[in-house]
């Protein structure tokens, strides 16, 4: 049984839902720390006594395995092609949560087909009743696969950094989600902030453009909720280079404390 490493529920853990809450983590632009936020958020949620699964929904260019330093024999690739069973593909990750990795060779699934769609839906349906929280680490960009993964989620978390390119891509993502899905509330996480209050400025700028260009085209306005921020922290780079979770390697680092605060606000 591979689930032994997963933190067992304690008496004061939160009440069990019949079905996991599914949160999609997306960003538009790559390299803004989406997978870093997802993996450490999962560890923070697990510490709060939740059963958490991180699913690598970046089917074309998965890298959750690199971040978590895992190399399972059975991945989503084997499950999709019928060469492995789902239960074997769910592996314990450092940090006390479970991970379902895409594996190499998933490049053939980077375009959405009815087959991929059905496989993906089937996997989600099977894992949802067994966890409290499922985090979908989506790919960069706004591909069909990303949009589809996001459409399966109960809520969306957009990771953005204060850089203009990241903000532009985050805005494009928000625009597409507002137009193609009935998403009216999106959570924002501002990563790599350099000064106090920068996260509020980033949210304010994005909301302003959404109000001006997106909301007039919609029946009800899109609202960006600032879930929180993660300060620029040299400890993050160190942990990533060592292929360790920040919450495991340096739980007292400012960025680690910020992720714990994010987790609290996400479920609170």
């Amino acid at each position, binding site marked *: 049984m591979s689930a032994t490493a997963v933190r067992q529920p304690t008496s004061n853990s939160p009440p069990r839902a019949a079905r996991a809450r599914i949160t999609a983590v997306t960003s538009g632009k790559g390299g803004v720390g989406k997978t870093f936020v997802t993996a450490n958020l999962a560890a923070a949620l697990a510490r709060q006594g939740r059963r958490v699964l991180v699913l690598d929904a970046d089917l074309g260019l998965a890298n959750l395995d690199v971040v978590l330093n895992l190399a399972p024999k059975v991945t989503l690739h084997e499950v999709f092609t019928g060469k492995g069973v789902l239960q074997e593909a769910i592996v314990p990750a450092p940090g006390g949560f479970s991970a379902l990795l895409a594996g190499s060779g998933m490049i053939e699934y980077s375009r959405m087909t009815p087959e991929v*769609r059905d496989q993906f839906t089937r996997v989600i349906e099977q894992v949802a009743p067994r966890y409290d929280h499922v985090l979908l680490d989506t790919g960069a960009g706004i591909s069909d696969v990303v949009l589809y993964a996001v459409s399966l989620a109960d809520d969306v978390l957009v990771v953005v950094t204060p850089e203009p390119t990241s903000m*532009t891509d985050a*805005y*494009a993502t928000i*625009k597409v989600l507002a*137009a193609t*899905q009935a998403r009216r509330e999106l959570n924002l996480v501002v990563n790599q902030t350099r000064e106090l*209050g*920068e996260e509020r400025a980033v949210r304010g700028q994005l909301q*302003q453009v959404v109000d001006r260009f997106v909301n007039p085209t919609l029946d009800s306005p899109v609202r960006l909720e600032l879930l929180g921020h993660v300060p620029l922290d040299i400890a993050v780079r160190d942990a990533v280079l060592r292929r360790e979770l920040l919450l495991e390697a340096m739980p007292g680092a400012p960025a680690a404390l910020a992720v714990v605060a994010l987790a609290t606000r996400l479920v609170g």
Partner: protein
Amino acid sequence: MQLELALQLLRQSGHELPAGKPGSTPWLQGLIDSLVDMSSRDALTGLANRRSFELALGREIDRVARIGEPALLLALDIDHFKLVNDTHGHASGDCVLKAVAQALLESVRPMDLVARVGGEEFAIVMPNCPSSFGEAVAERVRRRIEAMPVNIGLSQQLRVSVSVGGAFAPQWVRSSPQLWIERADLQLYRAKAQGRNRVCLEPAAVSVVSAEEKALLFGISQYQDIE
């Protein structure tokens, strides 16, 4: 049982009466089929009515989500229809509605569903319509109405036009018929606002960020807290 009333309604709506021995199972089945057909059509134009249109739209959106085939929904509205009624009377208004309905049917493929969803509002569901054809298809429908003379009475002819709004179903993505209708309606309002007798389709490439949007995104000092 309101059998007699049912038969009267069918006769009045031009439906064939059920064959077979009255009261027998095949006769009852025929009766139910005819009643179903009658209750899914608009009495004046014979097009699908709002009820059957919404059912069809639900089926289509499920199909699009499953197969990923592009599908277009057009929302159409006869321009200044109230004026026709007020100037020429309701009988003439009915002539216009019937003529438009017929022209819509003739300007689309047999697989497309044409419905009358309100007074002078129509809708067309077009399965398997590639996004690059959307504009041409909608424009063909609009021109067809524009070019068509409507006979009201023996010697009088009218010209009418329609405004057309359109939106493609989101491929692969979980959505609802309501959201699809809203998106097409929004484009119809745009077409009306831009002067009527025109087509507005929802722009496909919403992921493009314009220079104006970028200017607003970065125009103001990035560190200024606007809250």
